[in-house]
């Protein structure tokens, strides 16, 4: 059997995607008020571990980056760093209206208003803040996307790196980070 045969590649993809979607190790970057929604999501009331969601300790081990709320430019720098340290395939979930259009911080002098200008976001969950039910729904949506092979934020980031970098450097003037050369 040829490994690089198209059909067998498809089968391998299906199996891999099935495993990936059932094993989402999250790195909850606790910015903003969304961090407080994570404990009820993980503990016995809502129990996200049913879906294979589990906390990861470091970005090296994680699959999903949760941005739980508004991002100041100072935090954005760290978030970009964390995202670049994660291993492919990796996904980003944006929580709440702050990551979508700035939310209640829309006119703040140091908060970004649209996360997907700076990082490729796979799933947005709206709400201010989204309740755990909405978070679970977001995870379910991400699983759907992964199974369909559409959750390819990492590839998008790689291909449009220059655009993303230009946006990032616009809000972070003092850019001092290792190269991202994948």
């Amino acid at each position: 059997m040829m490994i690089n045969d198209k059909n067998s590649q498809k089968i391998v993809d299906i199996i891999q995607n099935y495993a990936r979607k059932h094993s989402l190790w999250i790195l909850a970057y606790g910015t903003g008020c969304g961090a407080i929604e994570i404990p009820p999501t993980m503990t016995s009331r809502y129990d996200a571990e049913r879906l294979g969601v589990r906390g990861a300790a470091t970005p090296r081990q994680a699959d999903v980056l949760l941005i739980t709320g508004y991002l100041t430019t100072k935090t954005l720098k760290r978030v970009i760093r964390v995202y670049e340290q994660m291993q492919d395939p990796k996904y980003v979930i944006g929580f709440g209206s702050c990551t979508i259009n700035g939310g209640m911080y829309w006119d703040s002098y140091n908060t970004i208003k649209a996360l997907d200008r700076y990082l490729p976001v796979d799933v947005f969950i709206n709400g201010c803040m989204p309740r755990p039910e909405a978070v679970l729904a977001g995870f379910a949506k991400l699983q759907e996307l992964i199974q369909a092979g559409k959750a390819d934020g990492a590839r998008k980031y790689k291909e449009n790196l220059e655009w993303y970098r230009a946006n990032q450097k616009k809000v972070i003037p003092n850019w001092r980070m290792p190269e991202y050369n994948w």
Partner: protein
Amino acid sequence: MNMIYIVFIVLLGGALLTFFANRISGLLRDTFFLLTILATTVLFFTKIHIGDTVSFTLAGLNLKWGLDAFGWYFSLIVLGLGTMAAFYALSYMKGKDRLGYFYFSFLISILSMLGILMSHDLVSFFIFWEVMTWSSYLIVIYSGRNVQKNGINYILLSALGAYAMLTAIVMVYANIHTLSISEMINTYPQFSHVQQVWLPVLFLMAFSVKAAMMPLHVWAPGAYSDAPMAYTSVFSGALSKMGIYGMVIVFVSMISYLPDDTLFKETFAWLGAITAILGTLWAIAQDDARKLLAYSSIAQLGYIITGVAVGTDLAMLSALFLAALHALFKGTLFMAVGAIERQTGTVKFTEVTGLIRKMPWTFIASLLAIIALAGIPPLGGFVGKWMLYESLINSNHYILVIAIFFASTAAFLYCYKFLFGFFLGQEEKEWENVKEAPALMVLPMLILAAGTLVLGTFPGILLKPADAAMQTLGYASTEGHLWSMSILFNEWGDQVLLRPLVYAIAGTFLFFLIILTVKGWKNTRYVSTKDISSSGEVPLEYENLTFSVNFYQPFLRAVGPVMKKRMIYYYREFGSGMEALFDYSRRIYNGNGQTYAIYVMIFLVIILLFKNSIFG
């Protein structure tokens, strides 16, 4: 002329030539030094055969020198390590001053060690022993650091041992009117019981000082770390083995004849185990690599002493095996520390980090040596440890097994500290321009480290001479029932094949290494040690993130009660107590003539009263 003379003349003459050549040119001095040690090694292993003896009379004393298999085994250690250390020293000592002095002392100490191994009479044994002490003392004070503290400690305890040995020699001469060692051993069973006990005690005192056994070890950390590392590898690897050499003879040929020999053996086995435990614990607490290795040497010699003291054939075999192996790995490690000291200028774990990419060969040599030290298969250290455990269990020393096992498990801690402290961790900008040590320094290390690797797979190479040595001591040949080439025997079972195990380990390792390397080869990247997941923060160049201060604090807290006081503290207490006592007794000289008259009176009265019992 006998070849034994020639070896000694070559060594002595070479030493003197080296010393005087220093005034002419450095190159000439180095050439003489290297030629001397090489010529000695070649002559020794080609021309001198086991059983050669030579005797002569000097000032009315019959002196006899000769070589037996036991001495040959130890001279293997001395000359093997000595040659390697000589090559290393050439590069390590380059650019330092008073090199003639150093090389002279180096060669003389090699000469004295060979002399000890070849002495068949007590006088030359004692003389060579003293020459060894003094030549090593000269090197300990070579650097000029801490001479007051470490040099004095060393020479005082060595003198204590020498006096003990001298007393024993006088005792022997008073009894049998000869100074031959074999005569002493032969007539030993006819000595009175008091002498039978005191003789080994006095001898063991002298030997324990050199082997750095527990209450007499206080000189070792300072002396080992103060001598130049080129010599410390010989100091710790070979010179301390002279103590083991003497101990083996005392235990085998004297203490075995005692009616209460088990007490002796148990005591010394336990002293060895306690030495191992405390040496290990103190090694864990050190931040200075030289001190760490010095304490580790004390601990390793503790295992060997335990093996010697237990004294069954397997235990003795393991002790001899470990003695040679200790020379290999400890020699390597001291050389590695020397290389790091030379390249970076410091030996503190808290200062140097991340040298693995700068000094890869030093790292490989240290890694092999550390694995051997820790006793992890498939390297040679495991064979020695395995034999030691088997022998201890076979001879019903159950608690001792646990003590030894504790020491060797705790040894992993300082093993890791050594490797991590120097080679792993953050690669700092400060050490960016460090280069690998010169080839002359790296090659001896690699050769010695490769020795441990070979001995792990083919321990028979070393077990054969060890067996011959033991037969000289009167053990039955272990070849039939304990070992043959790389097959170890367990007395309770059948044979152990080490080679398949080693091959299995190597095969599995390679298999998974290939899997790891090949899988996703294109998408695997090397990133620098500044690219770590530290909460999204990018460490700046000057930010040192290495964890090296208080490295084993939780462990040391757990074992804290044992380590409250150091042995040297008790010596100091004893010293100040004695001072106070003498200070008190000085008061009899109060400067009053009347009092002195009374003293004379009292003295005369005593003499008159007891004259019968004194002169009678």
